């Protein structure tokens, strides 16, 4: 579903070149859930942003369902791929009602039946339909993240890009949000590309994991590697050791 070949993302900042991502390749099958882990600045979020056009592709290629992505991405792309951002306090427009947030993608794509689709979307993510005309500041962090997930699903995409979707949430709200994402993936056959710095979250959600450091891919692991601590590189091992409390 997602193929990334030798991707590089280079920014120019203050007359310096910042090599955010260098020569990363990965391939994700349809309905698979793939995780990216690494410290801040390792380039994991940049990969997600490059896929959906928020960061430039300096070198290499990204293909979705076999087709190279276009720049700008276009409507066909947004029907297929959507993103959920880390901070639900920053990713919803503060002066748009939930109704407007959810109906805008339908309006842009000329899809009718807005009323019923918005109500349905709220129910799907477990929010009462009475929330429809509220503003984001009237919702808690967990409720906002549900709205962000509902928004991403309005166009019925096949792929969700998830950038630390639960790191701003309390433990119990994190559990509810992860359960919601797992249920939606099951029901709709979604493909996930997910970034998190919490190895336990990644292990709970993903089939395969790519460990990144300084913009490069370090090692690809599957769940068994993580549980049995059979990683080959020192860096992946040190990341695991620093997260040892996540086994408890």
């Amino acid at each position, binding site marked *: 579903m997602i193929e990334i070949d030798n991707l590089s993302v280079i920014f120019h900042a203050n007359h310096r070149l910042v090599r955010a991502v260098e020569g990363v390749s990965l391939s994700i099958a349809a309905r698979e859930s793939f995780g990216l882990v690494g*410290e801040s600045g390792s380039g994991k979020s940049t990969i997600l942003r490059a896929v959906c056009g928020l960061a430039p592709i300096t070198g290499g290629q990204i293909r979705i369902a076999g087709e190279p992505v276009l720049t700008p991405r276009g409507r066909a792309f947004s029907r297929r791929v959507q993103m959920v951002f880390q901070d639900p306090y920053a990713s919803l427009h503060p002066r748009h009602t939930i109704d407007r947030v959810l109906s805008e993608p339908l309006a842009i794509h000329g899809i009718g039946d807005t009323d019923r689709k918005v109500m349905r979307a709220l129910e799907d993510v477990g929010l009462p339909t009475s929330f429809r005309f509220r503003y984001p500041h009237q919702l808690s962090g967990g409720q906002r993240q549900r709205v962000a997930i509902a928004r991403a699903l309005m166009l019925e995409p096949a792929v969700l890009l998830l950038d630390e979707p639960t790191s701003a949430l*309390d*433990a119990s709200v994190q559990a509810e949000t*992860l359960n919601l994402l*797992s249920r939606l993936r099951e029901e709709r056959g979604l493909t996930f590309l997910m970034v998190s710095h919490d*190895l336990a*979250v990644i292990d709970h959600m993903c089939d395969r994991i790519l460990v990144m450091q300084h913009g490069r891919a370090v090692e690809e692991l599957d769940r068994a590697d993580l549980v049995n601590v059979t990683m080959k590189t020192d860096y992946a091992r040190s990341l695991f050791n620093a997260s040892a409390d996540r086994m408890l």
Partner: protein
Amino acid sequence: MTLLSVRNLRVSFDTEAGLVEAVRGVSFDLGRERLGIVGESGSGKTMTGRSVLRLIRPPGKIEADAMHFDGADLMAASEAEMRALRGRRMAMVMQDPKYSLNPVMNVGAQLTEGLRQRDRLSAGDARRKAIDALEAVQIRDPERVLSAYPHELSGGMGQRVMIAMMLIPSPDLLIADEPTSALDVTVQAEVLSILDGLVRDRGMGLIFISHDLRLVARFCDRVLVMYKGRVVEELAARDLMQARHPYTQGLLNCLPRIGGSRGPLPGLDRNAEWAR
């Protein structure tokens, strides 16, 4: 030896929507040790930390039967006496570097302000102390960081700058509010070992406020679990996995585990009785 003693602390806010009781009768003693306070957002853990420094603005109100820090009565102290204690004797690392550092002052000016004003150090001496403090929190390029503004730093860097700032006057008590939540696991480990060193070598008392139960279990000596402004359970950190209270157990159970089941995570039961 008791450094800080708090009895029946209550914090309330008289708002338009009625009285909000953020902290309702919290008591604890702190020696030269690491005490963790855990709970969800809104449980009152941050307000508990702030009241020790009496950093709650009206309409917020702090009441307590007794609150003593190393012989000083914090409830009876005047504003001037409190100011003499804050920073020098007891300090707090705030949660979010984005909001807690001054955005229009560079890091060097913020780090040296106290040294220049309070300790009357020369510019050169203050700068040297600031560089030492940044090195102590493992910042590799302290000269660059000194001349940087907060928006030019990453979250993890900003958090370490705040820790450095609080440690310059060598306080006896440090209250750290989610000091590592913006850091990734590897940097988190470094910051924890810095704090650990200060407790061990200098005999500092540390109150570590966090929502991350497993982190607290690994790092602290003792843990208070708060729910809706009350302490529902107090236990030794190493016994956290054998917690008795259903709320603490619920908080632990809703966390995913490496190698755990991939079925739905259990939700958290909340019982109004626990808050009584």
